[in-house]
């Protein structure tokens, strides 16, 4: 365990040095992060500008939901996203070999190798909007609610991670589908919306998206004090199951790995 902490500490250091060595890239990423983070907030403000609520959520709560999403993705993008983007290239060029040959769990190493620090601004933007919205609605969440919020968000991130990794594992069979990761970025947008939007439809095609929505809706609901024990349980179970599935699928895929060039 300590071994992995030391490895990650070193990775954090190397990523920091790398980021500072490449200033143009740093500025571009920062603009991107600020841009997309703000964009999501603008989006929800536009949507809620003419309504008082939807699916049992008040307008202000919908804003908090989206802001939670922004914080959520801020954490996710910082720790994981760049690695998912790289996986297609890593598999296609055979660089995966150098990961597989190291005495560290390959799934872990691939997932956290690079850190995208600039996305921390999304956390700041989202956080600011949440605080502002809570103030506007005169909500004062209890300490338990905040603790629950943070904990459930972490489990929610595990759900998001597992789904992304399950999909990305398919690249082992077809490394050319690099835009599968863009697709994931895109589909992840469903998490800005309340779970009720999907469950209300009773459409079997939407069911796979429900875990993504649950991952963000449940923590947000905890913060505004409307969460049910069932929601929490659902989140925890999904989280554990999907994570186990991602590990199993990855190990299975490695057996089919043909390792570019011969």
């Amino acid at each position, binding site marked *: 365990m300590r*071994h992995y902490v*030391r*490895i990650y500490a*070193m*990775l954090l250091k*190397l990523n920091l*040095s*790398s980021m500072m*060595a*490449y200033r143009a890239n740093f500025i571009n990423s920062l603009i991107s992060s600020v841009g997309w983070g703000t964009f999501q907030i603008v989006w929800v403000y536009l949507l809620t500008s003419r309504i008082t609520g939807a699916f049992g959520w008040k307008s202000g709560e919908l804003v908090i939901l989206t802001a939670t999403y922004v914080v959520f993705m801020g954490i996710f993008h910082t720790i994981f996203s760049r690695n998912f983007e790289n996986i297609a290239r890593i598999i296609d*060029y*055979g*660089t995966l*070999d*150098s990961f*597989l*040959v*190291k*005495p*560290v769990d*390959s799934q872990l190493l691939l997932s956290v190798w690079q850190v995208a620090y600039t996305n921390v601004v999304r956390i700041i933007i989202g956080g600011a909007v949440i605080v502002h919205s809570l103030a506007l609605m005169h909500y004062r969440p209890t300490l338990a609610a905040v603790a629950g919020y943070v904990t459930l968000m972490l489990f929610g991130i595990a759900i998001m991670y597992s789904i992304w990794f399950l999909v990305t594992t398919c690249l082992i069979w077809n490394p050319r589908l690099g835009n599968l990761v863009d697709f994931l970025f895109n589909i992840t947008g469903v998490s800005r919306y309340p779970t009720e939007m999907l469950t209300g439809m009773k459409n079997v095609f939407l069911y796979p998206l429900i875990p993504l929505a649950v991952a963000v809706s449940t923590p947000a609901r905890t913060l505004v004090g409307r969460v049910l024990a069932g929601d929490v349980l659902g989140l925890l179970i999904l989280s554990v199951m999907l994570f186990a599935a991602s590990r199993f699928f990855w190990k299975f895929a*490695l*057996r*089919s*790995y*043909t*390792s570019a*060039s*011969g």
Partner: protein
Amino acid sequence: MTAISVSRLSRYFRIYQKGAGIRGSIASLFRRKYTTAKAVDDISFSIEEGELVGFIGQNGAGKTTTLKCLSGLMYPTRGEVSVLGYTPFDRKTDFLKQIGLVMGQKNQLWWDLPPMESYLLNKEIYAIPGDRFKKTLGDLVDLMGIADIIGVQVRKLSLGQRMKCELIAQLLHGPRVLFLDEPTIGLDVVMQQRLRDFIRDYNKKTNATIILTSHYMQDVKELCRRVIIIDHGKLAYDGALSDITRAYSDRKILTVVFGKPVEKHVLAKLGEVKLFELPKARILVSRARTNAVAQELLRDFPIEDITIEEPGIEEVVRRIFSSHHA
């Protein structure tokens, strides 16, 4: 003790074919044709600790695939592999800590940072104790002569410098078995020689088992006492290099382009005719007689062009393979 033991190893791939043009593309929507490529087919051998063995064969013969099965990267279709007592594909941590893999041109160092940073990362990944790390690093840096560049960003280094640094990264944890896949490819002659010297010294100093794949005869000649020739996925030869070199280093190839047609049997008197497609022909001649034969050709025949060269690996492989089958 036996470091590596391979029994009836096979690795097959499915390759999908598509017809040409738009018609082919649309046809492939309905029916896909597959062929099974046998990259490695029923290979068996065993290697003792401390040996320096060369895997040779043409491109695509199956050498790299075998290497990847030995290092745990690929799952064998059939057969059994055991390296240092472990099954490579299980990829146990203890196994991985004892092997090293260096693949020709691939970059494992962080591009924007000095190699030293990547080394420190590897130190953590392989859990190398501080003082052992310092000593090993010191030795390797001296051996490679890179003390002045380990603080320079990798992207500012030349190819040769980069390769040296990459190699060191793979050796910091002191692997007992080292797999080198085409280590000298793309390097200039001087670098190739330096790298060969380094590998030889490393083997002597640490008694590491080293497996080297190459399609340069020179790499193998200088480093390996034992070679394994893999041809079209099959084991064509496994034995002392001296046996092959005896068959080959005493011969040379003369390639001639004739100005006027010449009879084959006349040429056959001078040496073994390998190729006869006028105006071009190729004959194998013993080293001692090469000059004499060349002079005779130039004197008695209408010659447009003549080249004298060492037999390539294709020659060796073909010879060995066909004699193995005879």
